Every structure is written in C-alpha cells, then in structure tokens.
C-alpha cells in the first residue's frame, strides 16, 4: 500500500469534521473521494498533506509515518496536491510557477546561487526545460511566459497540476480539479488524469462531477458527515443504498 490512513479524526471546536476514517490507497490507481458538501473531503486532504494536524489517527506513506510533520515534509515524502480555491503564485509567470515546483530537486547552494556560478546556470536551463515540458503536458505551452495573473481560470487549474507534477510526487491529490470548468475543459482534465495514471502516478481525486469520477477512478471512498460511508469500485459504490441515501438526503435539505 502506498498510503495508509489510520483512524483519522479532526475536530474544530465541537465540530467533528472528520471522524474515525481509515483506508489504504494502492499505488498506480486513481482513487476518488466523494461525498455531499461538508462531508469533510477537503479536511481529509488537508490531513493527508500535513496542513492540518489530526486530532487523532495517523498517516503513513510507504510504511513511514508522517503524522505531525509540517506540510513541506509531506511534500518531500512524495505527496503533491492542488487546491480547491486556486493557490497560484500570482507574482510569477506560468513558467516560474512550475520551475518553483522543482524546488525539491534543486540542490544549488547559497553561494553558488548568489554568484551565479556555471553549475547554477546549467541547473537553471535544465529546470526551465523540464518546466516547459510539463506545461506542454498540461496543454499550457503557449502560456509559458505569461504573467499568471493574466491567465484564464481553466488554465490556472492546469497550471497548479503542472506545478505539483514538477515536484515528481508519488501521489498527487487533486482537490476539485474540474470545479468551475466547462465540458471541454473538464474533458481535458479527464484526459490528463488518465495520462498521469498511465505514467504510474497515484491520483487521489476529490470531485463533485460524478461523470468524471466514475469514468477515471478505480477506487472510490464515500464520506458523509466526516465518516467513511462506503468504499470500493465505482459501480458497487454508486449502487450502495447508503450512498444513494446520503446524496438524496442532501437534496432534500
């Protein structure tokens, strides 16, 4: 198992956002986490990336415990992510955003950087070409030198994915990558997720677009009111009466 979550819980004051959630994620698969609004999906992602410290429970990646580590250590261990509300570096170009994503693989020391020694110039050229090929992969090659604050929303969603990929994560967590996108753009995301999965990157997808989820994922976890409601193959999960009730229940409210 690539990732193991053990009895994860997160309380905010008296609110139990996530409660007793355990699961294992196999490598090389697209996993989806679904559930009605407020089910605790984003809270769960924040627990899996170290942004929140769990109130209880533990997180393991490749058998190594990460619980309690700061977020940058989760990233260094191989967990990458994107954000539901965009977290672009708007003070940089698209290319620089992706180049920043290469941080974990850049070894230049302080003096080497300050004096811009030849080895830095070489490393920078390599970093630049790797970032360019990632932009190409997500379909943003023509935006490379654009100021990121001049780019459209759909492009920024993909820029976040390129930046996360630049860190070469073992596991990539996508928080609502298709939210706010039109059908064409959603199709692009669909294609991209399949492409990444075929390259061996384990994907964890939090998404409301059921067509996308059911199409790309091999394993679905359903959350409701902070608890794990069901888990399994997409077809089995979508036929589960408890899942149907949770979603219908949402509509009645």
């Amino acid at each position: 198992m690539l990732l193991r979550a053990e009895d994860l819980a997160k309380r905010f004051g008296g609110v139990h956002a996530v409660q007793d959630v355990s699961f294992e994620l196999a490598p090389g698969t697209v996993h989806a986490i679904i559930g009605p609004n407020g089910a605790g999906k984003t809270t769960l992602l924040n627990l899996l990336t170290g942004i929140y410290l769990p109130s209880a429970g533990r997180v393991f990646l490749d058998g190594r415990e990460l619980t309690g580590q700061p977020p940058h250590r989760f990233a260094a261990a191989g967990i990458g992510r994107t954000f539901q509300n965009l977290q672009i570096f708007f003070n940089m170009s698209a290319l620089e955003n992706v180049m920043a994503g290469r941080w974990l693989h850049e070894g230049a020391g302080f003096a080497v950087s300050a004096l811009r020694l030849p080895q830095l110039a070489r490393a920078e050229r390599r970093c630049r070409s790797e970032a360019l090929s990632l932009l190409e992969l997500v379909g943003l090659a023509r935006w490379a030198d654009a100021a990121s604050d001049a780019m459209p929303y759909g492009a920024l969603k993909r820029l976040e994915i390129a930046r996360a990929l630049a860190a070469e994560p073992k596991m990539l967590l996508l928080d609502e990558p298709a939210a706010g996108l039109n059908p064409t753009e959603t199709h692009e995301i669909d294609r991209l997720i399949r492409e990444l999965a075929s390259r061996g990157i384990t994907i964890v997808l939090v998404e409301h677009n059921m067509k996308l989820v059911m199409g790309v994922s091999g394993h679905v976890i359903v959350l409701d009111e902070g608890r794990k409601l069901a888990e399994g193959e997409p077809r089995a999960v979508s036929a589960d009466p408890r899942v149907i009730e949770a979603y219908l229940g949402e509509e009645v409210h």
Partner: protein
Amino acid sequence: MASPAAAAPPSASRKGLVALAAAVALLPLALPNNYTYEVAIVVGLNAIVCVGLNLLIGYAGQISLGHAGFFGLGAYGTAILAARYGWPTPASLAASVAAVALLAWAIGRPILRLKGHALAMATLGMGIIVSVVIATEDGYTGGPDGMSVPPLGFAGFVLAGERAWYWVVAGLLVATVWLAQNLIDSPRGRAWRALHGSEVAASAIGIDPARHKLSAFVLSAALAAFAGALTAHYSGFITPAKASFLHSIELVTMVVFGGMASSMGAVVGAAVLTTLPQLLTVFKEFEMVMLGAVLMLTMIFMPQGLVPTLGRALAAARGRPR
C-alpha cells in the same frame, strides 16, 4: 520568448544592472562638489539597505519595521569595537555584521512565525528595544550625544575623501544588486517569491516557509548592518537617530515608493527619498510629513511602486502585451 513576465526574466535584470553600473560610473560628471558627493554616498549606502530589505518585503513578502535597528547595531558594533577596544576597522566591521546576522537569526526564528500585523508589531518592538538600548548604554555608545568612529583603514592605508568613498560605495552597491538579482533568479529566489505568492502552496511543493523567511530576514539584516557600519566609518560620527523607528519607516518608504520586488526600484527609491529632503531643506521640519505623504500617494496611485509602474507604462507604450 522575449515577452515580459510577472517578474523580470534574467535578461531584463541584467539590463537593469548594466544601466545601474553605467549610472554610477557617469554620475561623478554631474557632481560639482564634495557636498553632492556626500549626498551620493549616503544614497548608495541607503540603497544597499533597501536592496536587502526589498528581498524581505518585496520578494519574500514579509514586513520589517525594525531594520534601522540592524543598521544602528551594525554602525555601533563596529564603532565600539574599533573606538573602545582598538580593533582594526576591517575586523570590527566584519565582526559587527556577523554578530548582527547571528542576532537576526536568533530573533527571526520566533518572530517570523508571526504574520502580517503581528510580524509588523514584533519587528517594530525589536527596533524600539535596539534604539533604547543604544540611547541608554552611554558607557559604550555615548548615549543620545552619539560617539565618534575611527576611519576605515588598515596597515597605514585609510579610506578618506569623498571621491574615494564614492567609488567604494558605488562598487559595493553594484555588487549588492548583482548578488541580490542572482539570488532572485535562482531556486532560492523562487522559493522566496513562492512564499509571497502563497505560503500554503509553497509548502505543498516542499518549501520550508520558516527556513526561507529566515534566510531573507538574516540576509537583509546583514546588508543593513553592513551599510550601517560603512555609514559609521564614513561619517566618523553616529547618533542613535540612525537606529530609530523613524529611520526604519524611511527605509520601508524607500522600498515601497521605488517598487516592491524590484532591485532597481529599491535603488531609485533610496535615491529619490534621500536627495529630496536635501533639495527641499526649507521644508526640513516637514520631512516626516513629506515621507508620510509620499507613502500614502504611492499606495493610492501606484501600489506597485515607481519603477515597476514606469516599466509597465513603457511596455504598454511599445504596444507589448502585459
């Protein structure tokens, strides 16, 4: 490839560096007397502080309202070691800068956990403590009356005279801008800018926020201390005013006015706000009023600061997309 991006690409920053080197090389032709040289030297020393402070404020996105404290400590450190303990001035200068860097590291570790207003207040408090200590420890510092500082020199050679000082400061300024620009265009610089852009996203790609805020803080403090120490040796006399809260505000105003996230902006900001009060000596009493007005007007009419705003206007005039 040549279209302008959010931050100046390396080629653009190199042009800026060449322009700066040319400007400081040609400036003496326009300096008629020692007094104007003196102003130019002070501009250069302030600009060194501002280029460093800009790494912290403009690039790493952290505020400091206490950098005059580091400037003052650098100045008094070398002054006390040289004047009271007889250290050779190059050694006292280096020791003073190193000690301030160490102090900034020790102070920065706890206070850089704070954000926004809280960080502003903490650095403000630190600056005030430094200036109070300098003003009250009169056994070492001479108190509010200030103290005299031996000239910079070693083994019979003494750096003296406006012209010599001008070339030394000019060289150091160009070197500082070059080093700063190299860092900005390196992975470390991108880490700083990433923290400014989104701390949570920066940590999600493996950047340790605490470590990189601290490196920008320590580097900017060391540059402030270096310029402070040079100022002390150059002017031969220092007073606690250089470490005061008002001087901290002056430094921040120079950075904001010239343009955040622009090394050239920091230099221009230092140049304008250092020379303006000299030109308008009639309004001496209103210097702080003027400073306040500059800060307000900058924030209202060109929140990006002078140099980035002009750069953008120029690019627009040439019809290039931005």
